[in-house]
C-alpha cells in the first residue's frame, strides 16, 4: 500500500523558505515515505511524526526537522 501525497498551504509556504536543493530533498523524502508508509510510526490519532535530516551542501549546514502526516 502507498499513499498519494497532498501538502497543505502552510507546508508549501514553509517549503518556499528553504533553499532550492533542500526543497527537492524534502519532497523526495515525502515521496519516499508516501511510497513506503510502513516507515512511519502511526499513533492512535492516525498521525505520524517523521524525522528527516538533510545536509544542505550549498550552505554546509545540518538541518533537522520533522513533518506530521495524516494517514
Amino acid at each position, binding site marked *: 500500500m502507498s499513499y*498519494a*501525497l*497532498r*501538502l*497543505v*498551504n*502552510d*507546508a*508549501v509556504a514553509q*517549503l*518556499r523558505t528553504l533553499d*532550492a536543493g533542500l*526543497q*527537492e530533498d524534502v*519532497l523526495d523524502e*515525502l*515521496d519516499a515515505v*508516501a511510497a513506503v508508509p510502513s516507515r512511519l510510526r502511526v*499513533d*492512535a*490519532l492516525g*498521525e505520524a*511524526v517523521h*524525522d528527516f*535530516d538533510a545536509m544542505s551542501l550549498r550552505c554546509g549546514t*545540518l*538541518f*533537522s*526537522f*520533522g513533518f*506530521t502526516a*495524516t494517514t
Partner: protein
Amino acid sequence: MLAAHTLPNLPDLTAEQAEYWVAAALAEAKALRQHDDRLYPPDGDGSGLASAQQLRAAWQRWADDAEALLEQLRPKLRLKVHVIGALDLDYAIGRARAMLTLTPEAVIFSREQMRRGSVQSAEEVRRELRAAAGK
C-alpha cells in the same frame, strides 16, 4: 531537568565527567520522547492542548539546559577532545528546536486546511517551486 548548570566550575569538567552529563541529557530526551504522541492534540479544546503546552515547555527547558551543557563542552570539542555522545546531543538539540517550531496550533490549523481541501499535490508543489527557482 539537568543539574549540570547549577554546579560551579563545570568548564573544568574532564572528558569522562562530561560524558556522564551528556549521557544524562540524552537519557532525559529519550524519556521525553516517550510522550511524543501528546505533542499534537486532535483539536484546541479540552486538556489535550494544555498537556501539549506543558510537554513543549519541558522540551524547551531541556533544550536550553542541554545547549548550555554543550556550550561548556565546546572548548574541549574544538580541541578535538572526544566526548562520547556529544554529537548525538547536538543532533537531539537540533531535533528538539525544530520540533518546537511546529506548534500544536499550527498542526490543528493544517488539519483544518486538509478538511477544507486546501491542499496541493506534490507534483504541483514541485513544479511551482522549480518555476520560482528559475529551473
